[in-house]
């Protein structure tokens, strides 16, 4: 039977003696007898570490690891520099709590301060918090920052990630705020339609850049439309793309948010990931969650502390800017180590390679009669239709089952959402095209 207790049986006996009692049960004398669980609960007997290791390896073995991944849609397969794993598995970083005691937490606080600084530099914004749960909840929190009694309507682009839209809707339903979707046209947000929807009750407009379909949106224009009617502009960005695309700061966004997973976090079946949030300075005191600030100690030495806590739940209770307490601190540190290891040139290089490989794949797909569905400029994702008479889902399943390739994501209208990153070699892309071409020929022949 497994356990992590440190006191021996005889030490436990000594402690019971010191308390003047005979058994552990007496410690629970304040618990009504009828509540004590009699026959336990559905749980197997405990196990040794080796047994557990075998069992969990066996479980992991029931998953399929694909040799090539052409699927993104909110979770991206990127190369993670070896130093990233080494740093974030350091025991102290792993096991520390939230850095309440600044005197013995400078390491964690400085690492978060550096993370905040890098997020500001990446997004072109003034101030970043220490992270929230993920990109979707970050967006929902950003929307909440913009709403007030006078302005409660929320407009989200229908070309944003479906899970982001769903999460915003859930948060807004709970808070009693209306959400409207701006339609899209040719794979991009319909800005003319957006302009006609927006009014003086609109709290904010949210656009994702690049959007769910991979298309690069005209965010500068979207921001102008939002600001013209006094609404805030929230830009959801991919942090790798941000190295080469116009920044939220350059698009005059009030808040920048996004999913930080591409910054060094493995796919991990959806988490833990990282919600990053940065804002312009006028919205600083509305940001949710922890923020690290610089100060000095009693001797005048530079020091870091959790600050602006008057926003937070443990001080403000029901008047807090959010209920968030724990965040994704270790993931924020992961992102910081990733960005520092890549450096400015490495980040740009990763972005350019993602984009280049996606464009190469798109051109090869076009050769086999799977042309782009939308005309707009795209980053590292794009949509193709599936040739007539073929089922996208089945085509993609066959790539997986027979060739170990995780193909693009089948989406509505029998289309496929493809993704490339720096991980996809030319050879891999060419192999995918060959396999697809064979499939198409075979299925087409059977027609």
């Amino acid at each position, binding site marked *: 039977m497994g356990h992590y207790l440190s006191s021996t049986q005889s030490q436990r006996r000594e402690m019971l003696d010191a308390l003047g009692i005979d058994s552990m049960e007496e410690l629970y004398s304040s618990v009504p007898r009828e509540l004590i669980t009699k026959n336990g609960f559905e749980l197997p007997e405990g196990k040794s570490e080796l047994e557990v290791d075998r069992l969990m390896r066996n479980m992991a073995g029931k998953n399929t690891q694909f040799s090539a991944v052409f699927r993104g849609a909110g979770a991206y397969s990127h190369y993670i520099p070896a130093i990233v794993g080494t740093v974030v598995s350091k025991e102290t970083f792993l096991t520390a709590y939230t850095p309440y005691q600044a005197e013995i937490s400078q390491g964690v606080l400085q690492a978060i301060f550096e993370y905040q600084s890098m997020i500001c530099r990446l997004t072109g914004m003034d101030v970043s918090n220490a992270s929230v749960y993920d990109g979707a909840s970050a967006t929902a929190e950003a929307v909440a920052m913009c709403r007030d009694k006078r302005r409660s309507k929320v407009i989200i682009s229908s070309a944003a990630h479906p899970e982001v839209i769903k999460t915003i809707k859930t948060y807004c339903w709970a808070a009693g705020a209306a959400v409207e979707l701006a339609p899209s046209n040719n794979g991009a947000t319909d800005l003319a339609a957006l302009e006609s929807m927006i009014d003086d009750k609109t709290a904010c407009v949210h656009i994702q850049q690049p959007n769910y379909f991979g298309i690069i949106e005209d965010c500068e224009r979207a921001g102008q439309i939002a600001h013209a009617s006094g609404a805030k502009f929230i830009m959801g960005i991919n942090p790798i793309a941000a190295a080469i695309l116009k920044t939220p700061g350059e698009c005059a966004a009030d808040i920048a948010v996004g999913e930080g997973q591409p910054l060094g976090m493995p796919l991990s079946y959806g*988490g833990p990931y990282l919600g990053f949030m940065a804002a312009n300075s006028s919205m600083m005191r509305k940001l949710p969650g922890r923020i690290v600030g610089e100060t000095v100690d009693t001797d005048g030495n530079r020091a870091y502390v959790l600050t602006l806590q008057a926003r937070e739940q443990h001080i403000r209770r029901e008047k807090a800017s959010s209920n968030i307490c724990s965040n994704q601190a270790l993931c924020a540190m992961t992102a910081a180590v990733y960005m520092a290891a890549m*450096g400015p040139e490495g980040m740009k290089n990763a972005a350019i390679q993602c984009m280049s490989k996606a464009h190469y794949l798109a051109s090869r797909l076009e050769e086999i009669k799977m042309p782009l569905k939308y005309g707009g400029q795209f980053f590292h994702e794009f949509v193709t239709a599936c040739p007539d008479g073929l089922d996208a889902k089945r085509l993609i399943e066959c790539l997986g089952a027979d060739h170990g390739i995780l193909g693009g994501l089948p989406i509505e209208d029998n289309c496929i959402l493809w993704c490339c990153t720096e991980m996809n070699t030319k050879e891999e892309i060419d192999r995918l095209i060959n396999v697809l071409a064979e499939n198409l020929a075979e299925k087409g022949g059977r027609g």
Partner: protein
Amino acid sequence: MELLFEKSKEGRSCTILPACDVPVAAVEAGAARQTPLTLPELSENDLSRHYSELERRAHGVNNGFYPLGSCTMKYNPRVNESVAALPGFTNIHPLQPDVSAQGCLEALYLADKYLCGITGMDDMTFQPAAGAHGELTGVMLIKKYHEKRGDTGRIKIIVPDSAHGTNPATAAMCGMSVVNIPSGPDGCVDLEKLRAAVGDDTAGFMLTNPNTLGIFEKNILDITRIIHDAGGLNYYDGANLNAIMGIVRPGDMGFDCVHLNLHKTFSTPHGGGGPGSGAVGCKKLLSPYLPVPRVRLKEADGKYKYYQEYDFPDSIGKVKAFSGNFLVTLKALTYIITLGREGIPEAAQNSVLNANYLMKLLSKRYKVVNDGFCMHEFVLTLQNEAKEYGFTAMDIAKALLDHGIHPPTMYFPLIVPEALMVEPTETESKETLDKAADIFLEIYDQAIENPEGIHGLPKTTPIGRPDEVRAARSPVLRA
């Protein structure tokens, strides 16, 4: 210590990526970034030393005793970490077809089953990423329940004044107003005040049990009945489950919904503030409203297959993308499987034993708020000392830093002046508790002798006490 940015040298770099092997594509000028990207430029050696230095300026459970009340800083088993690092889990895309993610789905299914057993709930979701996120999800379930019954006048959430700040903040995010009820003289819920607070407008009641004073609410069955009789639902904040896991089940106490802090009770590390996991369990009456997808098991052709079910039309939707902090859930599952049926209650009992033993030792000098036995934690008050000698809970906490002990939670619960909330957890040995008690008592005696001296502590930490007022008044939040 220098920042990464101060160590940066133009032209220095790591070599991570190969040359691009396809024709290079470029962003059209109108969409391209204008501002230079000013990230630090460093070698791998620079990075390695920087973070090693930062690590030395931090304190984790691996460095020493960490009796931070309400946070359950137990030992974080390393087999959990090695399991969560298996490529068979880390390389799995969240949108892989179910047939190719059977291991992940099995993990979620088992965690659901085991934790429902431990809590006495019927269904569970692992989508919430932290305790507060779980609370948000739970209160949303309660809101949806009333809404679906057309009972739309239920807009109030009742919380005791000893509650964590996340409880009222959560209620407010769900558009609910918050009714704070004062605790009785014994630190427990005052039944009369509770009866007076409930009514047709009661949506629900949020409670930790044991409560934040480390006391088991002995009237818990009356409490939950009062709420149910008024038409409200009971929400269990799982922050303090460690004291009772495997011994008493929230479901049997009359709770309809719980959240668990897997990063407290179920041994996953806190990571300097996250990631956690705020799994939410509920009774059948709330199951239709749980976030989607939910993991199911079906039999087909004599084989069992796990799959994700999205078809719950009354679901609140999503509170986060995908399936939550999956690897955290996986670590918690590894822990549950290790401890098993006997180990879970044994851990709870030993957390209570350790707390009572330490409480007894500290009561030689310190004023303990609890009467009789405590549960997994207890609360000290330095109110008299602050008045008579001029040293505070903060001073004791800061003095502990010089002895390699992480201080207890300070100034919480809010109902106790000059509070120190101590939670040793079950993974500490008797020697650690004896030694810690000696240090606590020695600090106390020194403070009585020389109250001025303690204000200047700590002396041996990387920095002295920071100027928090300056940090908030003139914020410097980035380099």
